[in-house]
């Protein structure tokens, strides 16, 4: 499903070049639930951004669903992001002037689904998140956990192949974090691949496979006992 080979990525700021990913190899199968760990600055977010076609890479290759993700036009990239990838961010990233339902429905809007239809689908997803009553609330009227569940619903609505979550529980308390993880597990059981970047051991332990990044490569890997 996801295939990375010899992936290199450097950031260039002014005259400095910061080599972050140094020849990363990684294969992820369809339906896996994976967590990525590593110390701060080890390149976890960088990796996730490359996987999400939000950022480019320098060397090696990245194949998503057997398609090479390289030198894409922005239009193509937008298409892949829309159809194959769902994002969940640490800071939720909901659109402030749209209510919960409209936020969830947004990816379908970019697919050209009619307003009535996409809102109806969005309601179903909110219902699955237990947020049906909050559908017409604006983001600033929701708690962190509720916002993250709205964001998760939004990441799922276009039925992506993979959901990329960068520290999705970073802004939540531990109880809420575990609830969110339960949600991810449930979504994963429907066959969607999920990659979660986290610092917390008890979060990573909820996933099936844990990858440790260090010095731009995968230092070690564990299969969880779940």
């Amino acid at each position, binding site marked *: 499903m996801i295939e990375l080979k010899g992936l290199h990525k450097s950031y260039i700021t002014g005259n400095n070049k910061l080599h972050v990913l140094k020849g990363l190899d990684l294969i992820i199968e369809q339906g896996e639930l994976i967590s990525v760990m590593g110390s701060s600055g080890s390149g976890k977010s960088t990796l996730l951004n490359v996987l999400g076609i939000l950022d480019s890479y320098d060397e090696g290759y990245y194949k998503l669903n057997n398609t090479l993700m390289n030198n894409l036009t922005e239009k193509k990239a937008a*298409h892949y992001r829309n159809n194959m990838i769902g994002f969940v961010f640490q800071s939720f990233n909901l659109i402030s002037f749209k209510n919960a339902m409209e936020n969830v429905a947004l990816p379908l809007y970019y697919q050209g689904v009619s307003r009535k239809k996409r809102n109806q689908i969005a309601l179903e997803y909110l219902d699955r998140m237990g947020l049906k009553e909050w559908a017409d609330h604006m983001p600033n009227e929701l708690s962190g956990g509720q916002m993250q569940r709205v964001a998760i619903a939004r990441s799922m609505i276009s039925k992506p192949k993979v959901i990329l979550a960068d520290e999705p529980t970073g802004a939540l308390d531990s109880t809420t974090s575990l609830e969110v993880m339960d949600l991810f597990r449930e979504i994963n059981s429907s066959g969607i691949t999920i990659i979660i970047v986290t610092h917390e051991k008890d979060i990573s332990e909820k996933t099936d496979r844990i990858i440790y990044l260090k010095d731009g490569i995968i230092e070690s890997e564990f299969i969880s006992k779940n």
Partner: protein
Amino acid sequence: MFDKEKWQEIFSSLKNNKMRTTLTVFGVFWGIFMLIIMLGLGMGFKSMIQEGFGDFATNSLLIWPQQTTKAYKGFPRNRRYMFTNEDVQTIKEKFPEIEFIAPKLRAFGSEGANNATRGTKTGAFSVEGTFPEYNLIDPSKIISGRFVNNVDIKEYKKVAVIGKYVKDVLFDKDENPIGEYIKINGIYFQVVGVLTKGASNISLGSDKDRSIVIPLTTFQKVYNRGNEVGFCAVTAVKEANIAQVQQKINTFLRSRHSIAPDDEQAVGGFNLAKEFKKIFKMITGIGILIWIVGTATLLAGVIGVSNIMLVVVKERTKEIGIQRALGATPFKIMNNIITEAIFLTASSGYMGIVLGVGVIELIKMIANNSGSDNPFFTHAGVNLNVALMALFILVIFGVFAGFIPAKRAISIKPIDALRDE
């Protein structure tokens, strides 16, 4: 068509910054408002000038004899001469580009002495002898009766067409002057018509209301002027170049009157067509100036919109990043921003147009109600095409105003946009 997601976005940024939006919108509003007002009054100004010309033949020319300035063929310089009936006749036959030629002779009541009387009523007026054609070149309005005609000319008839003021002086209020007799310099003339100034504000010499027009031939006979002619009004056919016609006539007259061929001063002339052209050029110039000034003002407003859109794009960077992560294409993003710019310019411009047209119509209404006949106000107006054109220009400007900010918005990598705080 009505895309709620898009308009939600547009209105949210407008609503969040009401003051900023108002100020921006005001720039465009003011630009188009001024443009419309200037165009409206420009139209009034144009009608004012055009009505001033009225039905005066524009392709026309006046010529008159002056003193020679060069000795020639044994004649000394500073010689006085006159045009003659034969000159007029020959010119008419010789130059087909001439439409009408009307000779004229004039005499005044000498130094305040009254020259026209009827019973005990008396007054001093300008007396002019002319041809019927004159009324086709510099038309008077015939209030009653008729103008001088060809029979009058041929038969030296003692008939007179009197100005409105002359009638008021020589006749009682409810008297009908037609057919009555008046005495001009001691000779009886029958009144055949009453005239007043025509639609044109152009006045050649005397006030028409205060003059008496008689046949040229009669004039020459009564005043002992032989076959002399004072000056001629000439109109050329439409296709002809009046300046060339003037040159031809002058050359012809110089050779006929033994004047040096290079004595430009000997034949006086006034090319009305040239003057008309100058004025029309000026009107066109003013029109162009209005568009330039108006469009520049408008442009300033539009640049304001463009600036604000840049700020909006900057503020919305993160949001745009989110949208792109969710699959919004660059086209979609640009489309939203350009639509917003068009919406801002077009809606504020529309208000400017409506208010501008409203003010112009109000001026017109007030002018009409107060009985003003000044076309500057009564004929002020904005025609629909101009308003639509202005609106069209606004939309085009809106596209431009949105384009640079839109380009800026998608030039940022999605990941950088997402990182923006």
